[in-house]
């Protein structure tokens, strides 16, 4: 897929994702050839689809497909995934169960247990999702800062406001760089940890810049803020993965260089 193909695909996906979500979106993604894309161009497809889920605020159960591909599961299954505090959950393919979580839109439900399998590809996928959500949040704050006038000028003129947004931008860009080269289990752990951390940094600064309006349920920020909490808790939170990476390097006795010129 060259870059103009990718742009065209991104355009199509963005359109579909802004009008549908959940099982309806799953169906439309399949019609667009999601399974074939995933088989033929896994890296490009995963980064594109999951980033756009975040940017558009829609959701889909496609993380199951990423996991099934990674260990030859039967198509259409849901895979049990670790969630914070030793829980196991599944991402339903249909929207029947709605549990009262921080993000009730997501059809996650608890299961007794699951198999510990390589999570790398799915962690990278959720990392891209977190980055997409973060970029969407940052854009909300950016336009708000330019529109909102106080003391006779846009609040974007104030250095305290500018530096918070710059801080979020740096976190997002850094995390994206780790995702772009994420390879192997350690690389994927670090990339999801960086993305989760970028999302919490962004959420905190964006919320502050949005002020009162960002605390209303009707503002688009609310959905993103809830979503990134949920996505961070799935397949290892930023804190858990960072600690696990610390254990790995302590046991290894050195700090692995995962990318080289």
């Amino acid at each position, binding site marked *: 897929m060259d870059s103009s193909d990718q742009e065209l695909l991104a355009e199509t996906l963005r359109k579909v994702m802004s009008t549908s979500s959940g099982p309806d979106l799953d169906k439309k993604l399949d019609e667009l050839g999601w399974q074939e894309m995933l088989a033929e161009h896994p890296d490009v497809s995963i980064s594109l689809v999951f980033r756009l889920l975040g940017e558009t605020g829609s959701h889909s159960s496609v993380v199951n497909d990423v996991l099934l591909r990674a260990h030859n599961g039967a198509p259409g299954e849901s895979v049990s995934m670790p969630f914070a505090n030793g829980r196991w959950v599944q991402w339903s393919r249909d929207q029947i169960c709605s549990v009262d979580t921080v993000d009730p839109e997501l059809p996650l439900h608890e299961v007794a247990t699951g198999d510990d399998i390589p999570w790398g590809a799915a962690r990278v996928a959720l990392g891209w999702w977190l980055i997409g959500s973060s970029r969407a949040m940052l854009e909300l704050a950016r336009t708000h800062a330019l529109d909102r006038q106080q003391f006779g000028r846009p609040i974007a003129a104030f250095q305290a406001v500018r530096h918070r947004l710059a801080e979020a931008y740096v976190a997002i860009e850094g995390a994206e760089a780790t995702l772009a080269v994420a390879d192997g289990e350690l690389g994927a752990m670090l990339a999801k940890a*960086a993305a989760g951390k970028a999302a919490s940094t962004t959420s905190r600064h964006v919320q502050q810049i949005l002020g009162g309006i960002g605390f209303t349920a009707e503002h688009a920020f609310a959905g993103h803020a809830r979503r990134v909490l949920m996505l961070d808790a799935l397949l290892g939170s930023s804190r858990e993965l960072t600690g696990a990476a610390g254990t790995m390097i302590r046991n290894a*006795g050195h700090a692995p260089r995962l990318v080289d010129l």
Partner: protein
Amino acid sequence: MNTDRFRDEVRHWLDSHDLTPGDDHSFDAQVAQLSRVRRALFDAGWMRYGWPEEVGGLGGAPILRAVLGEEVATRNLAEPGIYSMIEVLAPTMISYAAPELAADMVPRLLNGDEQWCQGFSEPGSGSDLASLTTRAVQAGDTWIINGQKVWTSLAQFAQRCVLLTRTGPGHDGITAFFVDMDTPGITVRPLRTLHGVDEFAEVFFDDVVVPAHRMLGRPGDGWRLAMDLLPHERSTCFWHRIAYLFSTMDKLIGDAEQVDDLRLGEAYLAAHTVRCRSYATQQRLAAGAALGPETSVDKVLLATTEQQIFDTYRDLVPGAVEWDDETLRSEYLYSRAATIYGGTAEIQRNIIARRLLHLGRGDSG
């Protein structure tokens, strides 16, 4: 030469040529060690890869210089900050000096014969560099320079200086010169730093006469010259510094007396993140892209990471900085400067806000 082969051959060569520094950790000894390393690497050819043939190089992609610097930093052969200065000084000469001047001078820097310094900051012009007031006035085929520079690294060791002066108003009134440090009228007063080293200096210019052919570029090119340094500083130099931070992480893992995997993991994650970011930057540069304000992201990540790693070191090896590890103490204290030199953390965030987030002009530029 291909990058992987170059790395392998450099490693092989370094394995059989011992350039380990001696026991003297004074700054004078570090500067002497730097010259020794450069001389040896130049004579063996390694130092010449990635530089154009016109200035004594052997050609090849500039990325080879990043690879060589990483090997030097990983083996702790030279103090990484002063080793990397060549990466901004030599490209400036290649781009702005008259070709015969560059051909004459750059090899002396590459081969370890000389040290050079950069006269940019002034007592009244730090973050607002374009307000500098060191004046150059034309007198026939010479220029007369008067003024003062400060925070000039290596000034007391340097044979030459890339100097920014004012020749007219505004950004277009800044002009650069390549000045011999033994010219009458130049006084260097070293400044002792927080980490106990005479690393930088004040430099005074009193009626210093510089020949017109030592001008870099044309009158008014100085600001552009200063801005053109950034892509060099933020590609190869940063890669060297990141290599140094990874070898610091290795040492920390070995030295840690407290087990705190979260803290250790956080420091490693920060190091990994800036390495991935810098990797992407080097790839873009190698593909022919012009680097611009987006490298402020690299700068913020690097400065933050350096301080985080040394904070973690201090916490996991209690008392080492304060009491019994002199080298670590010096490195820890030096890391405090990372958010100040090369453009402060605040200036970087201003650039990100204005140029990357398009937030318009702020109250502070």
